[in-house]
């Protein structure tokens, strides 16, 4: 009897304490697919988290869990965060899509934000960056600089985001270099430095002198540096430690403004389920410094391309573009609509090989 009473009192006190805490602080959770020290994708999301703390100070409390496998285990992590009183949870990898929707159903008062996915609910927003805009610039530099005309591409998983990047890079490499060939290797991982390095080495052994990566670590940069005359691009983060060569430029994800705005919305009670997809223009995608390893005129062209994309004058997917099988996709002057881009599951004409299904 005594024990039961004690436990009830304790539970009540704990409940009150949590309630009081929730009123004071907005608790924001982050679920990460790799370690915050990956130097790429997760690193930048964590930078966004730190910016959030900087912005709101004591008004916000952030928590994060790293190395969360995509799939069922992520559901456990999200559930735990929600139970621990998180008001807003950012789930930062494509494979968290269904788990996020599932957990969101169980916690209607908690707001969820899923990166790079396409499933939304009343308390689930989606957000992503138009990385393909940056890929256009990489493709331009890659096509201009390759001597072997073979460009290696390390893919993670065959999902629309990655396929868009391959297509965008290919279109712009082909524009400046009609002989260019893409060799694509799927690593089936977002983060595995040894495997990423192996993939880069294999591509280099097979003649690639440019390696593009859509995986999260800097391992391919190290492999390229080791090999010598190969150029690479920072992915998701600047990866400036490998500049000026092999890394000659980069795509930098800048999540901080978005994380701050969304947390503010939760604090103000104005949060609504939305779909955000920003690119170079609004600053969600940054282009890292183009180094002197790139010839001056190529650099100039690349920067002009960046400006025209940022201003909206030019869309990286502007027709005429055919699909891989030769069927027409975009007519002369047409640009791709966001729906098609969001679900892109085909290569454009000229890319060899099949997309794994």
């Amino acid at each position, binding site marked *: 009897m005594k024990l039961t009473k004690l436990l009830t009192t304790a539970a009540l006190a704990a409940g009150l304490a949590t309630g009081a805490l929730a009123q004071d602080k907005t608790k924001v959770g982050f679920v990460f697919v790799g370690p915050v*020290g990956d130097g790429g994708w997760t690193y930048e999301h964590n930078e966004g988290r730190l910016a959030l703390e900087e912005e709101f100070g004591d008004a916000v409390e952030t928590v994060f869990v790293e190395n969360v496998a995509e799939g069922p285990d992520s559901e456990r992590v999200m559930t735990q965060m929600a139970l621990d009183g998180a008001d807003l949870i950012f789930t930062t990898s494509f494979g968290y899509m269904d788990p996020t929707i599932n957990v969101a159903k169980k916690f209607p008062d908690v707001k969820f934000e899923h990166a790079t996915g396409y499933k939304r609910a009343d308390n689930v927003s989606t957000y992503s960056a138009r990385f393909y805009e940056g890929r256009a610039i990489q493709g331009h530099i890659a096509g201009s600089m390759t001597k072997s005309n073979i460009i290696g591409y390390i893919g993670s998983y065959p999902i629309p985001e990655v396929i868009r990047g391959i297509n965008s890079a290919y279109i712009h490499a082909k524009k400046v270099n009609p002989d260019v060939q893409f060799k694509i*290797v799927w690593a089936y991982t977002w*983060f595995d430095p040894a495997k990423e390095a192996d993939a880069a080495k294999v591509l280099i052994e097979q003649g690639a002198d440019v390696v593009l990566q859509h995986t999260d670590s800097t391992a391919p*940069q190290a492999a390229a540096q080791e090999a010598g005359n190969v150029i690479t691009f920072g992915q998701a983060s600047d990866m400036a430690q490998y500049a000026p060569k092999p890394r000659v430029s980069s795509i930098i994800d800048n999540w901080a403004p978005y994380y701050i705005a969304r947390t503010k919305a939760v604090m103000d009670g104005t949060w609504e389920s939305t779909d955000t997809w920003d690119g170079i223009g609004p600053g969600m995608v940054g282009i890292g410094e183009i180094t002197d390893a790139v010839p001056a005129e190529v650099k100039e062209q690349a920067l002009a391309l960046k400006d025209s994309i940022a201003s909206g004058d030019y869309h990286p997917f502007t027709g005429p573009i055919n699909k891989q099988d030769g069927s027409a996709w975009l007519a002369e002057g047409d640009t791709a609509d966001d729906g098609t881009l969001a679900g892109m599951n085909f290569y454009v004409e000229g890319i*060899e090989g099949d997309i794994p299904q």
Partner: protein
Amino acid sequence: MMDLSAINPILFVAGFLVAATPLIFAAIGELVVEKSGVLNLGVEGMMITGAICGFAVAVETGSPLLGFAAAAAGGALLSLLFAFLTQIALANQVASGLALTLFGLGLSALLGQSYVGVKPPRLGDIDFGPLADIPVIGPILFTHDIILYLGIALVAATWAVLKFTRAGLVLRAVGESHDAAHALGYHVKRIRTLAIMFGGACAGVGGAYISLIRVPQWTEGMTAGIGWIALALVVFASWKPWRLLLGAYLFGGITQLQLNLQGAGVAIPVEYLAMSPYLITIIVLVILSADKSAAPASLGRTFHASQ
């Protein structure tokens, strides 16, 4: 377009020898540990600790070999924690091993903070003189660093020690029946602690091979599950050193092969290629283990002299 000529067989073989080496070290160490009757699931944690200890010391001293020595020391030191928990405090081996992995991952991330983006000194290849000039065989076999050869030598030595020496016999006795070994007057805990330290040192060197040679860089969590593959490999190799070597080469070889085939645009669905290293390694080793070889009888059991 399929273009098999893009694959350079010499570079391919040389590549998979390198890819298999971390696995060989980690697995042969764990094999000895399990032969002594201890199941240490902390291989991943000891590898990643070795990876950063080796990396840091190599960078600070400029000597990759000192780095590898430090990696062995770091891995062995971490394994002492496991030895303390399981041999002195008699804690559950599975739980202690898992804890060791989590601890190793966290500790390495902490130790490695100032080493992100640093380029480690390169360990040169051994100079075999004219041997390296032999067509095909030269570039495949005689253009590697000393650690790679050490891995193969270690497998041979482990096999020989376990099979032909008194020390090996005692180790196996402890693993098969710790009560009988104890009754004969052998120090079960001491022998197991030494085996655990050997396993830790090997895992550490395997980890450092990734951070100093295979990648080469330091990134948090960079072993990314190789320790777990090493653990599985020990079981599928039926605790036999040569099968373990074969399994590591199969796994490393098919991993490299599938990347090469993808690059060359071979018309095999990528999903099948991606799963092939796991599948083929398991199938081959399971077929080989159709004989009566079994796990050490005392594997995973706690020993206390009074029981």
